[in-house]
């Protein structure tokens, strides 16, 4: 028992006073604050709604994966600006690893810049080409790049102009890993790059950034060589995946908005948010509904092989309100900012067509259905590709489906029912479904980057890019030899090919929807000449971030 002496009393009284929850909480908070005080590092956050399961640089299947590849690898050249300047149509290229910039007839003598890309050599280029060739669907395979001695050549098309050649030479450069090389590195293109493969990734690349951590829904990069602490240049990059657009929007309006947002849906306003939209002009793509001629169901097969059906379907797509709002009138839409191509693949040479009025189309569709006398309700399911969310989001697709059904199910006639199936399961599952023959229609985007060879290969029978099964049997004029001839025939061949597409409707082209990324106003990025547009991530390593308190 305690004696009651004054001094002791006071001490015991103090000891008996409970230290108390408030004190503890306060000290925890203080510690937390100390711990969370921002360091000197500048982090840039990139937000995306596209899920990436595999971050392999050679087989980058999603846009975020392409961004990471671009940041972590080197290349010979880099496209910096588009349009403007002295030559309106020629984009400007910058040297990255290549010391030489002269390209003669599609051939480049390899000379490297040891300052920018230390230690790189011809064997690295050879190693990269090996890996690229190992992955057959790789876009760079289109060019048939070949290395003979120290000369890198574009194999197809023969004798390309400088623009095409330099575009071809923008492929990501890998570094040949030193010996003894582990077995997995031999077939890098087959390795799935997920959590745990960071070391491997960094070993075969040598770009401005290296991979710190790959996780299921984010990737963290950090600069390979340190920057000055007083620099405002970006030290770390964090690519975050948001499953829902709504949460992404909430985050953009919240306390810590991301600095870059990838694939911001075209129709959505940026509003008063502090972002600049960036439209890469030369991505060159078209969104289409493909006719899957490999479909197993005979009724659908028969229908797809009718040219008249394909024509009417394509025109009815153009007549729907949804597409019209997205793609706009003949001069291009304001709201959707899509580009109407007609039945053509190239925005450089769109097909000039008159879009029929909906009333006329109804009559035509009705008479077609009556003539065909289809059996019990034919159901055509449309498989939607993942990654189309930014072009045709869920409500657009719902409206599109309604519009199509109202057109193709007139009263008193056995019509066709269309069903849009939302993407589930990521790009791999989509590829598998696409090739399985279960779905007669496929809604997807084909990216050709302005390379006509790409979209011609897309429809060449026997080509690995042609997974819709287009062939002479089902669409007139598309035989392997014919298309091959057109591919070799230069601009004339292209014109001929596009004419064929316009007549035969092998796929139903909706239009071109260039993606749009949002870049925060707090970022200082290199500019371009008057009237020129900077390419989305050109010169990323020089980007600066204006620091601030909690943003907004």
């Amino acid at each position, binding site marked *: 028992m305690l004696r009651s002496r004054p001094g002791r009393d006071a001490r015991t009284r103090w000891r008996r006073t409970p230290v108390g929850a408030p004190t503890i909480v306060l000290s925890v908070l203080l510690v937390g604050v100390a711990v969370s005080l921002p360091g000197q590092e500048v982090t840039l956050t990139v937000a995306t709604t596209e899920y990436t*399961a595999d971050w392999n640089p050679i087989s980058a299947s999603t846009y975020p994966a392409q961004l990471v590849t671009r940041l972590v690898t080197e290349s010979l050249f880099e496209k910096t600006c588009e349009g403007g300047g002295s030559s309106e149509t020629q984009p400007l290229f910058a040297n990255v690893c290549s010391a030489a910039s002269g390209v003669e007839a599609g051939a480049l003598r390899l000379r490297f810049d040891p300052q920018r890309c230390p230690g790189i050599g011809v064997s690295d280029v050879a190693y990269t080409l090996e890996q690229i060739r190992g992955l057959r669907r790789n876009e760079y395979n289109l060019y048939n790049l070949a290395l003979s001695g120290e000369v890198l050549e574009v194999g197809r098309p023969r004798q390309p102009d400088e623009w095409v050649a330099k575009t071809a030479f923008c492929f990501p450069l890998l570094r040949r890993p030193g010996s003894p090389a582990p077995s997995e590195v031999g077939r890098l293109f087959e390795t799935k790059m997920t959590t745990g493969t960071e070391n491997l990734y960094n070993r075969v690349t040598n770009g401005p950034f290296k991979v710190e951590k790959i996780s299921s829904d984010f990737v963290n990069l950090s600069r390979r060589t340190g920057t000055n602490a007083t620099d405002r240049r970006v030290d770390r990059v964090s690519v975050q995946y948001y499953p829902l657009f709504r949460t992404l929007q909430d985050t953009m309006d919240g306390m810590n908005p991301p600095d870059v947002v990838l694939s911001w849906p075209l129709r959505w306003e940026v509003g008063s948010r502090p972002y600049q939209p960036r439209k890469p002009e030369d991505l060159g793509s078209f969104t289409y509904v493909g006719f899957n001629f490999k479909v197993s169901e005979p009724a659908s097969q028969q229908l797809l092989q009718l040219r008249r059906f394909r024509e009417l379907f394509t025109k009815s797509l153009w007549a729907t309100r949804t597409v019209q709002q997205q793609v706009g009138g003949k001069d291009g839409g304001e709201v959707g900012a899509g580009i109407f191509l007609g039945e053509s693949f190239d925005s450089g040479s769109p097909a000039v067509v008159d879009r029929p009025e909906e009333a006329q189309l109804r009559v035509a569709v009705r008479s077609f259905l009556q003539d065909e006398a289809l059996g019990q309700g034919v159901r055509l399911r449309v498989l939607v590709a993942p990654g189309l969310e930014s072009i045709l989001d869920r409500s657009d697709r719902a409206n599109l489906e309604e519009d199509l059904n109202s057109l193709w199910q007139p009263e008193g006639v056995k019509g066709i029912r269309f069903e849009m199936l939302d993407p589930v399961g990521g790009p791999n599952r989509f590829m598998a479904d696409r090739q399985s023959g279960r779905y007669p229609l496929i809604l997807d985007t084909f990216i050709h980057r302005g390379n006509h060879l790409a979209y011609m290969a897309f429809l060449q029978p026997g080509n690995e890019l042609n997974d819709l099964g287009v062939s002479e049997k089902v669409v007139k004029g598309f035989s392997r030899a014919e298309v091959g001839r057109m591919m070799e025939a230069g601009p004339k061949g292209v014109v001929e090919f596009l004419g064929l597409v316009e007549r035969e409707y092998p796929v139903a082209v909706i239009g071109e929807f260039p993606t749009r990324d949002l870049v925060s106003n707090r970022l200082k990025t290199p500019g371009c000449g008057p009237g020129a547009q900077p390419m989305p991530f050109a010169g990323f390593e020089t980007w600066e971030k204006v620091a601030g308190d909690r943003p907004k």
Partner: protein
Amino acid sequence: MTGRSEGRPPGLPSRRWLGRRGVAPLAAAFLAMVLAASIVVISPDAHAAWLWEALQRTARSLAQATIALVLFLLLVGCLIAVLKAMYAGCGGLGPRFGTAAGLLLAVIVGLNSAPIVVYVQALRSLERELGDSIPAALPLWFLHGASVVVALLAANAMIYYFFGGFVSTLLQESRKLYVASARFKGSTLPGYLAERGQMYLLGILGPLLVYLLSFTVFTDLGLKGAFGADETGIVQTLFQSSREEGMSDRFVVFLLVLMSIVLLIWAGLDVASTALERRFREGRRPTRRPEKGGTACAAG
């Protein structure tokens, strides 16, 4: 909401099994870990880092669920204190108690008829509205954690199920003879009920934790990016993985790691509750505090 063994894992509480009750979950946890490790070793795509990532995410979700659990218990404590104030002090729990409990539960029914996502979105718009007025000294991780934990309390019908079950159990028990006769034994009704209440709460800790863990799906989905947070928990990762990649190795490994942690927790809870149960039954008598100032009830 019925029955006295509500919340206890199935198993006879007889003495024979007391020592072995924790064994099965422990063994299963070990098995799951071994399986996960072997998948990592065998499968060409899998990496050991997956195990670590799964552990981190599980730890995160578990931490959130545990703190929410503590908050829930505090909430229950407050509500019980309120109800206790309504206790008539004599005879049964009294009509005032019944009325108060009835009204309270009715309000809870109303609140629980809105799913958790409604509350999550409310928090999100709160973040937007408050924005600049939040003092900069408050670290963002704390704010995020707080909003997750508060949102978890709104898990679908959770409060009604567990708190309602608690009240119902207490009421049923209060009608039993040994409790009703408390004041004749020099103690009080609440004193006797306290033991039963503690047993009940201990019994529901496991299911409640798992319940809360399940609902981290919605908080992770809805609060991603709120206050700058970018990490998701294990359950949402599993859902995402199954949706985007199907039944991949990654999904299985993550699931097995989660299972082993959860089974460990079940084992721990088993052991703790068994030990406490034994203490209640065999040895230590819980204090059944007599009411201050003596029982002022009329005799009979």
